[in-house]
Structures are given as structure tokens and as C-alpha cells.
């Protein structure tokens, strides 16, 4: 009699408790980058996308961001690793290297270039390691950038390329861009820098070479220092093309590259999936599909350059 009642109570409890809520937990995301200015874009795009996917700061997401020069990155990576984050977002290959060295278990979402060539992943489709994320096309696009710049200033005869000593694929760049230059009847010179202090000397060298065009090669550091570089270029009277569409607004004549918004959003997707338990090695590395062109008409006018209509038609963003 009492037993029977107990069984029935238990059954009722079972039905009632069926919809009990699952417990919440806090996910930690670490961010490592040489570019502190990127933090703004990260907040605007990555965090917004993460919130959309159910990971909101102040609710179930805790953020730990570290920025520093290339030399400082390994130390910062150690620091982040000790916090035992659930995922580490590494912007630039130097950050990825530092993160890989600092930890052997934390999944890394990269925002960099050439993951296969750098040894981070076995293939784009099946990375197989601890690194996934987005692969920005850099070296290839730099050639395209030179082409665009030449279309804008067809009369130019001398071009310069600013390279960063930490950048990867500089040799590829020199070769492919050299080829294009020789076909187009351009004289080309390459100028490598390691830190901000080297910039003036590089520009002096360009001037000395009589360069009219400047390709600022794709590199996080150059994205960080875009305003300095734009000012130096303006002083040198160089028509510049930079890595991102947004860099045109910051002072480059042209900015052409993958959609940064898209890539950040993709990065957020990777982070979310890793939070949900996916193994980074199973997540294919994505390449950009959308490319954006930015044109700074102010700079054009200051340089006395006429932007062809064809290019203006292609531009996604025109700064007046």
C-alpha cells in the first residue's frame, strides 16, 4: 500500500523533473595578437557573433586579451595558457607560433596565412592538429594589389614593395611581383622592415629609388601602423595599395583584400564550435570568398591621381 503510493509519487516526480534546466558554465576565450587596434574590430564583430551564437561576455564568456610585439608574444602566450582558456584566438602567424609553443592542449583559432605551408595543418579540409580558423590569402593577393595600383596609375614606371621581416612568403612575393613588373615594364624594389623605427629609413630608400607606387604587403603590423605608413607615403608622394578595404579609409589610396568582417565572423563560428566540444582538427580551415576594394578619393586628389571609372565601379567603399 505504502509502496504503491511511493512508486506513483516517484513516477510523477519523474515526469515533472523531465524539463530540469542544464547548468551553465563560463567559457574562457584568450586572444593573442601583435595588433591592439584589432581589438575594436574583434569586439564589434567576433564578440557580437559569439553572443549571437550563445556566448556572451558577462554571462558565460570571459575574455583574456594580450597584445605585444613579436618578441613579447611567447611570454604572453604562456600567460594566457596558464589561465587555461577553452580556446585561443591567435591573430597573425607569430601569435599562432607562440601559442603552439606555450601550450600543448588548448585549441587555437588562427587568423593568419598559409596554415599548411606553416605546418599548422595537414590540409585545409582536414587540419588534423590543434589549429583551425581562417587562412587569409596574402602573398597571392599582393600581386593582384600591384595590378590594381598600376591600373590606377598606368603611367608609373617604378614600384616599391614594403615587406615585414616576420612576414611569410616574402620570397614568393618578390618573385611573382618581379615577374609582373618585368612584364608590365616596371622597375620594382623591395624594402623590408622589422619594427616601426625602421619605417622612415625604408621610405627614404623608396624615394631614393624614385618609386611612384607602393604595395604595402599584407601583414598585421602594417595593419596596426596604417596611419603612420599612410602619412609616410603621403610625404613621399607614393600611391599605395594596402591589405584591407578598411585601410583605404585610414590613408591608403587603395585597400583590397578579403572581407575582414566575414573572416572575423567565421573566426567567431570556429570559437563557438570549439566551445561546444568540436575538435579543432576536424574543422576545415576556411579561405575568404568575399573580397572588398576601398578607394580614398582624398588621397587620390592629393596625389593628383585620377581613379578610372572601371575601378570606381568595383569599389565597395569610397572615402570622399
Amino acid at each position, binding site marked *: *500500500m505504502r509502496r*504503491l503510493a511511493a512508486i*506513483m509519487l516517484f*513516477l*510523477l516526480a519523474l*515526469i515533472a523533473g523531465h524539463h530540469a534546466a542544464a547548468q551553465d558554465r563560463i567559457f574562457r576565450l584568450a586572444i593573442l595578437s601583435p595588433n591592439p587596434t584589432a581589438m575594436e574590430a574583434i569586439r564589434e564583430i567576433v564578440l557580437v557573433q559569439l553572443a549571437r551564437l550563445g556566448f556572451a561576455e558577462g554571462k558565460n564568456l570571459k575574455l583574456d586579451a594580450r597584445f605585444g610585439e613579436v618578441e613579447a608574444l611567447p611570454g604572453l602566450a604562456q600567460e594566457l595558457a596558464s589561465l587555461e582558456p577553452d580556446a585561443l584566438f591567435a591573430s597573425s602567424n607569430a601569435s599562432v607560433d607562440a601559442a603552439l609553443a606555450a601550450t600543448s592542449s588548448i585549441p587555437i583559432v588562427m587568423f593568419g596565412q598559409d596554415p599548411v605551408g606553416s605546418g599548422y595543418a595537414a*590540409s*585545409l*579540409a*582536414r587540419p588534423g592538429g590543434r589549429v583551425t580558423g581562417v587562412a587569409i*590569402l596574402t602573398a*597571392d*593577393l599582393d*600581386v*593582384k594589389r600591384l*595590378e590594381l595600383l598600376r591600373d590606377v596609375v598606368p603611367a608609373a614606371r617604378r614600384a616599391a614593395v614594403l615587406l615585414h621581416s616576420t612576414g611569410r612568403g616574402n620570397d614568393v612575393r618578390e618573385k611573382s611581383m618581379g615577374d*609582373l613588373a618585368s612584364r608590365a615594364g616596371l622597375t620594382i624594389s623591395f624594402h623590408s622592415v622589422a619594427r616601426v623605427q625602421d619605417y622612415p629609413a625604408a621610405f627614404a630608400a623608396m624615394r631614393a629609388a624614385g618609386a611612384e607606387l607602393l604595395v604595402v604587403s599584407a601583414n598585421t603590423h602594417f595593419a596596426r601602423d596604417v596611419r603612420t605608413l599612410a602619412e609616410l607615403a603621403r610625404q613621399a608622394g607614393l600611391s599605395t595599395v594596402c591589405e584591407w578595404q578598411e585601410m583605404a579609409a585610414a590613408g591608403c589610396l587603395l585597400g583590397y583584400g578579403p572581407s575582414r568582417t566575414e573572416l572575423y565572423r567565421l573566426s567567431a563560428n570556429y570559437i563557438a*564550435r570549439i566551445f561546444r566540444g568540436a575538435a579543432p582538427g*576536424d*574543422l*576545415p*580551415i*576556411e*579561405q575568404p*570568398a*568575399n*573580397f572588398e576594394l576601398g578607394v580614398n578619393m582624398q588621397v587620390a586628389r592629393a596625389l593628383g591621381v585620377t581613379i578610372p571609372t*572601371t575601378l570606381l*565601379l*568595383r569599389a565597395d567603399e569610397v572615402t570622399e
Partner: protein
Amino acid sequence: MNAPAATTKDEMARHGGKLFRKYILLFVALVGGTLLVNGALELWFSYQENKQALARIQQEKALAAAARIEQFLDEITRQIGWTTRAQWSRTVLEQRRFEYLQLLRQAPAVTEVSHLDAQGREELRVSRLAMDVIGSGTDFSSDPKFIEARARKTWFSPVYFRKESEPYITVALAGTGRDSGVTVAEVNLKFIWDVISRIKVGQAGYAYVVDTRGLLIAHPDIGLVLRKTDFSTLPQVEAALAAKAAGAQAIVGRDSAGRQVLTAHAGIAPLDWTVFVDMPLTEAFAPLYASTQRTAALILLGLVLAVGAGLLLARRMVVPIQALQAGAARIGGGDLRHRIEVKTGDELEALADQFNRMTAQLEESYAGLERKVQERTDELARSVEELTATSEILRVIASSPGKLQPVLQAVAENASRLSEADHVTIHRVDQGELRFVASHGFRKDRMTEDTRLRIAPGAVAGRAVIERRNVHVPDIVAARAEYPDSPAHRYRDVKTVLAVPLMREGIPIGVIVALRAEVRPFSEKQIDLVTSFADQAVIAIENARLLDELQARTNDLMRSVEELKALGEVGRAVSSTLDLKTVLETVVARGATLGEAEACSIYRYRAAHKQFKLWHAAGLDPAFATTLRALDVREDETLMGQAVRAREPVQLADLRALSNMPLRDASLAAGYHSVLIVPLVRAERVFGALVLNRRHPGEFSNSTVNLLRTFASQSILAIQNAQLFQEIEDKGRQLEIASQHKSQFLANMSHELRTPLNAILGYTELLLDGLYGKLGEKAQGVLERVQSNGKHLLGLINDVLDLAKIEAGQLTLTVSDYAVGAIVQSVVAATESLAKAKGLELRAEVAPAMPLGCGDERRLTQVLLNLVGNAIKFTDAGSVTVSAVARDGRFKLAVRDTGPGIAEDDQARIFEEFQQVDNSSTRKKGGTGLGLAISRRIIEMHGGTITVESELGAGATFRIDIPIRVDDAREVA
């Protein structure tokens, strides 16, 4: 009284809850069952309806998704198409590049666009990533993107993956003009993601696209696409690819993680792609689950109510029943004064009242029952006493089988005790009187074993015997007039008399008399008791009688068996030998034993002299034996003769009673007083007589006489057998000696004959050779005839000699190695001329590679020569063939002719001495008839056989079969 109550309590505890549970279970089962059936039916129908509705919705979603993807592709195609239709399409390249750049801006999915001229050469390529190319002239005229586009205006390539990761297709569009080129665009299919991820299918559902190979092209999880995931193994994809039929019904499939999904698909027309719309089954069926839960809750509620109602009802039913049960248990436990209190006002109360009434009645009848039981117990005690008495008597019977006295004593004793008699006497009918056998309570001197009572109606016991019934006299003193002869009158302490006859098969064999010292009649029961003791006494008497009889019969049988056994042994002993002397010895020895006589002798009858003569004896003292041997017993006038004539045994119990007999005095003198004479006669032939003597006078028993009669006939047979055997043996020995003499004589004679014959032949030869001068022609002819006949005679003599030697055991084989081929050749050579003379063909067939034989070569040659000679001799036309083969370690020789043949009857005979096939032709051919006999002996000496096969008129074949190596054969033998 306590133990059963405790048991009932246990039982109550054990069964107590059962009825209660049954009620509840019944209720719950009834209500719950109804609810369950109802719920299940409702669920089933709603499941079916839901499923159909879901399938329909899913199918529609699939078609909508397909339409959207088609729209996406159409948009791209349309945008590319713009560039081909433009007015300036055939104008300057720069213009076209401008157009292409615009396309790239408008269609973000297009990564690269190029233009091929009418010959399929690349004129222009504009790319988002790579350098633009102008006028490369690369030849694509044989590429499908050129050929197919020219043929069909629009062409979609199969899906391919750039960098093994990003899905692309090539879209090629031909220009409108006759010699216009083809515009080729590379389209990044990642952009379908925007379309596909916007297709919402419920909460967790999604759409995806696969190409004709089942490769994933678009999926909300772009990672799966980039990984080039192959979906062809998913059941729904497999089914769709196999069926190729669009618009199929939604089915239950699996997603890539193996979860069950409700899935539908639709084709994307221009590309042969298929779009699938999957929805997790859990979500699809969520409403169904909700309804299931509702139904389950309802059922549960129903069950709770059912249990509650069941509890209430069961309690109402069970409490009075338990009261009934407890009351019944108490009553059952013996508390008959207990009354059950149930006030429910229904059937249960009626039942309780019934119980109470029943208890009251039980209480009443219980008292009566106890009284009856007491009575029965007393009766039983008495019966037990009687039974004990009976069993005691039986025990006495059993413990002393065949002994009557103790049994009767026990009967008297127990009868006295149980019938409350002061004295009991038992008498047996013996030669018309009643003999006292046992008593109890009677003074010993009143009756003894010799006491005999007359059987008279004037005495109580006598009347009981005569009238074969119980006689009860309550007061013998008062009944003196009726029973004047009663011995009871003699004793003052006898008043009441009861006499019960002992009856066996209706015949009185005695009487049992019970006496009381006071006048107190025996009760009916007591009389019955005495009667039953009387029956037991009869049984005991009968038993004793039967046992005595059995004993006598058994003794008789044992004696017979022993006699038969003895006879059997004697028979075996007598016939165990054929030696006459032994037989006779055995006969006399056994005869004495069988007849239990001191001496036994056999006399032989001589018919010629009509006399008996002592032949053999045993147990006779030597002097008497000598006397007897010298004595002739004449047939007439003697007991022996009398016995033989009558063919019957005769005995004399005492010799002294006999007068004037030749044996009488001698026998008496030797101490023999009785005699039994058994004739030895068989089939009317008188052999003699068997005489047994005993030292003491007295008759021989019948059985002994019969025994000896049988023994005598056995003895005759044995003696006759022994005599016959002895005779045969004597004859045999004589024959053997005669035969030896004959052979010896023949051997000697032949030898003696041969010597002069050799001389005759020798001289004839010399004469014919002309050593004694030239002979006249006539003389020459005569001499030749002499020589020929002489040789023939010599041959005959040699044959006889051989045979004689063989018979006398003088012929021995000279064993040596020989070649059988050589023997055949020499025989053929010797007989060739004979054959030729008769115009016969003589053939020799000797198998090749014959082994070397071992035997008497000369004798074997002789045999073969004899056979071949015979064959030639008896064959007038045709051929004679000699053949030889070796097989199984033996030589098989055969001589075959085409002569007249030998009749079957003659075939066995011809190998005997002096036998020839007896007909005119043989006589014409001559011969002694010894050749084959000698041949047979020789072959047999070699351990072989010689046989003939023939039919009259069809020739004959003689076969010799001998071991190749004679010594081997002998060793084996």
C-alpha cells in the same frame, strides 16, 4: 489443540493479503486496461496523421528549398548572360574587361570569369585573386566548357574542389551571335551557404545539397562541405540517387551523426543536384511525444484512482471475510463454543450465521461420538487379545514345523484362557476312538497318551464327532440322562461342557473339549472362539500330515535320482572303451556296486554246448573263482538257464532253500547266501548272464532288479561293440600283412623277370645287328617282332615294378633342379615320330621365362611321356598339345588331345591300378592300365594332383598341378 491453531494462524498470515491484493489488482487491471487501450488507439491514429502531415510539410519544404537554390543559380546565370548579350560584346577587350569587372562586383560568387573566342581560345580572364590575363590564347576548343556551351548555350560543370576544399562549378554560356565566343565563370559554391542556411526547417532542421555522386555541396555546417563530405552512404541519399525520381515521399533517414531524421528531397533541375530537407525525428515527433505524455499522465491518474477505489472496496470486502476466517480457524482449532460476529447485513453475515449453526451442531454430535469411540476401543482391545492368541499359535506352528504336540498344547492353553474354561482337552480320532493328545488345566494323571474314549452319542465329545457339530452342555450333571457315557461324570469339578469337532474337509479328525468347574454356559463369542481354535488345530494337524508325506516322497525321489545317476555313470563307463577286457571289467565292477552285492560275474553262453562258462568276475574270492571257471553250467535245470529262457531276472533270497544245484554248495562254501541272475539277451541272441552274489541272505529290491536289468542291456551293447571292434581290428591287421606280402612278391618277381628279359633283348639286339652273322629276311622279321614284344614286356614289367615299389614304399624321389621346358621338349622329341606316323600334329606350348623347378626330373618326364604317349595312342586324327605355365608357385601342365574322350564314369577309375577304359578300342590299343596309376602316385609324391577333363567324342585334357619346388611344398606340409 495448540498446534493446529498455530498452523491456521500461519496460514492466515500467508493468505491474509492475497484477497486484498487480488481485489486491487482486478480494479487496476480493469481501469488501467481500458485507459491503456484507449490511449494506445488514440496515439496510433494521431501518430499516423502526424506522420503524414509532417511528410507533406517536409516535402513542400524540400521543393521550396530546391526552388531557392535554382533561383540562386538562375541569378548567377542571368548575370553572366548579361555580359554575353551586351552590344559591345564583340568590341574591344578593355570594354569586355570592364564588363567582367562589373560582373565580379555584382556576383560575389563568381571568382573568375574568362572569355573564349569562337575558336575556343582564351581571350580574356578576369579574377578576384589572380592577375588578369589578356589574350593568353590558351586553346580550350576541346574542353567541355567550350563544346558543351556551344552545343547547349548553357553548361554547368560537375562540382570540383579548389585546394581540395572549396566547392566550385564552372558555368559556361555561349554568346548569342553566330561566331560569338563563350563566357566561362568559376562560381564558388560556398555562396549557396547563404541560401541554404536561410532555409529554416523547424527548430533544428536544415537543408543540404548533394551532387549526383552524393558529395555534399551545400550544408549549414560549411565545415562538412569544405571537408568534401560524402553523403552517398546516408540511406535517404542512397535511396534518392538510386531512384532518380523527384518528389518522393518523405522518409525516416539518418543524418551524418547517425541520428534519426525525417527527410524529404527534391531535385535541382539544371544541375542534377538534390536538395534534402532533414528534421530530427525527435523534433518532428515532438507534438506526438507531448500527446503521449498527456495520455500517460491520464493513465497514471486513472491508475491512482483505480488503486484508491480498489483499496476502499477491498477493505470493505476483506475485513468481514477475515473475521470469518479467524472464527473458522478457532472453530477448526477445536474451540466449538466460539461464535463469529459479523454485522454487515449481507451474504457475509448470513455465512457467519451458518457457521455458528454448524458449530453448534458439531458441538452436539461430538459428545455422542466420544462415547461410541470408547465402546469401539474396548472391543478392539478384546480383538487384539484374540489376535495375539492366534498369532502366538501361529508363531508356535512356524517355530516348530512338523511338530504337532507343542501346537496343540498352545491351542489348548489359549482356548482355555480366552474362553474362560477351566480345562481344555484335545482328542484325535484314531481307529474309531478318540485318543487324548493335549490338555490344559486338567490334572496330568486324569488322561494320558493312552487314554482312549469311545465315539458314542452318549458322550459329549462323541456326539460332537458323530453329529459333526458343536455340542454345548451347560450342566452335565443335569444332563446325565442324555449323556450317560460322558467321562465328565467321573470328575466333580466338571459342570459345563463344550465339545467342538475338529473338521477336515467335512471329516471329523478330532475334538476339542472345554470344561468349566461351575455351571456357567459359554457365551456365543466364546463358542466361536473355541471353534476358531479348533480350526487352527486342524490346520496344524494337517500341516504335520502334509509335511510327513512330503518328506516320504522326497526321499523316494532322491533315491530314484541317485539310481539313475549311477546307471548313467555306469553306462558311460561301460561304453567309454572298445577294449573287451576293460568293458568286462567295468561291467562286473559296476554291476557289483549297483546291485550292492559283494561279487558280480559274467557268464558266457555257448550255444553249441548249451552251457554257461564264467567269463569275467569281480569280488569273488580267488579259490571260488577257480572253482567256478572249471565249472560248466548247463542251460537246462539251472537257475541261469531258467532266467535266460524266461528273459527275466531270477533271484534267490537264500541259497540254502535251493536243492541240488551245482553252484549251490560252492557258493555257500564261499559264504554267499543270496543270488540274482540277470540274463544277457539281445535281439533273441543269448550272450550269457550277469550274476550277483550277496553274503547275507535276503531279497534284491525291485528297484535294484530293474536297475540291473537296464544295466544288463547296456552291458550287452558295450560287449557286442567291443567284440565287433576286436574282430575288425584282427581282419585289418591280416589284410595289411597280405598286401605287404603281395607287393614284396611283385617287386621281387618283376626284378626276377627283368633280368632274363634283358638278356633276351640284349641277344636279340646282337642278332639283329648281325653280330652272329647275317640273318635271313624271315628270321630278321621274327627277331624284330621278338624285340618289339620284348620291349613291350619290359615296359610292363617296369610298370609293375614301379607300382610294386610304390606300394611297398620303396620308390623314392630323386629331387634336383629341373627346367620344365626341357622336360616338355624331351617328351615331344621322343614322341614326335609316333605322332608323325599317325599323321597327328604335336604341339608344345611352354610359357616364356618359366622358373626353375625342383623335383624328380626323370619321374616327371616319365609321367608326361605316359600322358603324351596315351594321347597319341588313343587319338586317330587331329592334334596333341602339351602346355606348361607357372602360376601361384605351381606348375600347371596339360596334355590335350582330340581323341574319342573318356566317359564321366570312367574318369575317376582310370587312375586306379589295372584300370582302363573298357571298350574295344582300348583293347585294340593295348597297355597295362598301370601308367596312369603310377603317374598319379608320382605326382602325389610331388605333392601335386593329376586330373582329367573330358567329354565323349570331344577329346580329353589331363592336367598336372605340382608345386614348383617340391622341398618347399614338403616343408610347408
